[in-house]
């Protein structure tokens, strides 16, 4: 086991380095002068001085501003130097200072983590509490109307875009009950009830989407496990069906479900971008989208690295968990 853990962690480091290289390259692909686009499309950068004008897209940008921003972004230095500085900074949790907000990028991310984490955890809970019971019932009652309804609904859940569910969850309560989501965000420890109210709909919209694939996996795994000999033995012993399903079958069916959940975690991260935008929650996803629209490439670069790292860490944890649960993995 220890050897497996070491090997898996050794793979983790190059993954993160490769990820950082990809993100760095991606942001540098920006056609034209990134600094000029940033200034021209978003107005003047806070705190950067300058006079003397350059025309771009109808907006006037001063030469000094441009030089100051280039220097701030490090665009005036050779590529490899830019990359090394950025990665070494990232290792020390220093991703630079956003030229727009004037605050450190890690600080901006850090203070938004609790919002995204709460949304993610609640969505996961919603997803699992729908997916597992429905998946188990669907498998235990294979080819009955319950199974068909469960499957049709789960494919439906895969098909309905989260942003549409989210939009409808804002539109219809407001029409029917005159209920609007609060404009100001309330942290959990300030007012737990108001906070949970704020998170209920986005978590529901995100959770429904997650539940579909987890439910399908649960169902197919349960079907497989229920055909195993030890399940037949359990039944032959005269155990009640409920005990057979929950104590004997479900436990073993859950292992692959954990894998699908790690894949779903990627969707969850993407989903937070959408839900935080719709429901006006100040999370990391929202910050990322804002960085794209305000052309804050430095912030965007940092956010994408952060999201990718979180994704990689979750995959690492799931792999280790998997190896711990299923000893066969360690030896392959």
């Amino acid at each position, binding site marked *: 086991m220890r050897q497996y853990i070491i090997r898996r962690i050794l793979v983790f480091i190059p993954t993160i380095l490769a990820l950082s290289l990809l993100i760095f390259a991606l942001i540098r692909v920006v056609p034209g002068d990134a600094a000029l686009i940033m200034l021209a499309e978003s107005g003047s950068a806070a705190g950067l001085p300058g006079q003397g004008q350059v025309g771009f897209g109808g907006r006037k940008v001063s030469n000094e501003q441009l030089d100051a921003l280039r220097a701030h972004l490090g665009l005036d230095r050779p590529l490899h130097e830019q990359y090394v500085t950025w990665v070494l900074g990232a290792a020390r949790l220093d991703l630079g200072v956003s030229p727009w907000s004037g605050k450190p990028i890690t600080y901006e991310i850090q203070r938004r983590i609790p919002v995204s984490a709460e949304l993610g955890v609640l969505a996961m809970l919603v997803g699992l509490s729908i997916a597992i019971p429905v998946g188990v019932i669907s498998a235990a009652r294979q080819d009955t109307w319950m199974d068909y309804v469960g499957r049709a609904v789960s494919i439906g859940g895969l098909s309905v875009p989260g942003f549409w569910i989210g939009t409808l969850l804002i539109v219809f309560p407001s029409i029917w009950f005159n209920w609007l989501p609060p404009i100001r965000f309330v942290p959990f420890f300030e007012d737990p009830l108001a906070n949970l109210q704020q998170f209920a709909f986005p978590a529901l919209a995100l959770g429904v989407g997650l539940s579909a694939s987890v439910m399908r996996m649960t169902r197919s795994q349960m079907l497989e496990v229920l055909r195993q000999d030890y399940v037949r033995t359990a039944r032959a012993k005269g155990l009640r069906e409920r005990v057979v399903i929950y104590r004997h079958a479900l436990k073993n069916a859950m292992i692959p479900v954990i894998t699908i959940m790690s894949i779903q975690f990627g969707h969850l991260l993407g989903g937070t971008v*959408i839900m935080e935008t719709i429901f006006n929650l100040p999370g990391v996803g929202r910050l990322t989208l804002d960085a794209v629209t305000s052309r804050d490439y430095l912030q965007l670069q940092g956010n994408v690295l952060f999201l990718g790292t979180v994704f990689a860490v979750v995959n690492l944890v799931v792999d280790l968990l998997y190896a711990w649960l299923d000893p066969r993995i360690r030896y392959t």
Partner: protein
Amino acid sequence: MAHVGGVRGLAGAGLVGRVARPNRLGTLGHFMRTKPLGAFGAVLLLALIFTAVFADVLAPYDPYKIHQGHSLVAPSPQFLMGTDEISRDILSRVIYGARISLWVGIVAVGLGTTSGSLLGILSGYVGGKFDFAVQRLVDMIMSLPTIVMALAIMAALGQSITNVMIAIAIVISPSACRVIRGTVLAVKEHQYIDAARAIGCGDLQLMLRHVLPNVAAPIIILATTSLGGAILSEASLSFLGLGTPPPTPSWGGMLTSTGRSYFEVSPWVAVFPGLAISLAIYGFNLLGDALRDVWDPRLRGR
């Protein structure tokens, strides 16, 4: 060559033995009976394709036309799905939206699966260091959640339909590459490959004439199942304001935040485009599931 023909002939014979070849309608009927949900999905997709192709004929109005004095009109005989905040007919925009969705989806999936598959074939066939390098590249792209990756690509390339297609293709290609590489590794071990090599086949000919046809089925399944995802990605990006630029009618774009303040008073603006996306993707998912069951039992339940 004779060996190849023989193997394929055998596989063909197996197929012919089960479902008589001349009776195409019978096969279709069989599919509809055993996979009613899949058949329903096919019907939805045919409707989607029909709508996209005949959008000019089906749409009651020009999707860009502003009907002065008719902003946010509720569904009525004149405007069956109502009008949006700048007085455009929603039904016409939904109909033309089918064209955009399908077009973006097909080009993106075509680009993504073709490049991914070719790279996968090459990677699996050549093996060694090249394979290792390609697979690490795939790991790299897969290490970001799809939407985040697409978002970053759109931020770098800028907003346009072509760039949406490129972004979605890049997001799709790694999984195609990985799946096809796996299949190629299995196909490579077959004797007919040795036989073809023995009679003097070159590498290129081997890959294109002998490996490619044998990995065609997974490529087709991948393409079908990716199409739904591609349409969803286009809609999501457009919803976030980074996809198909306005005023082009795109389903996701119609739901975007600019119109959002009107949704509470005029919910039809939000309902119909979302319904269209959901039905289209539902169709792809149902058909994709059924095709997977029929063609490739190994992938069943995944």
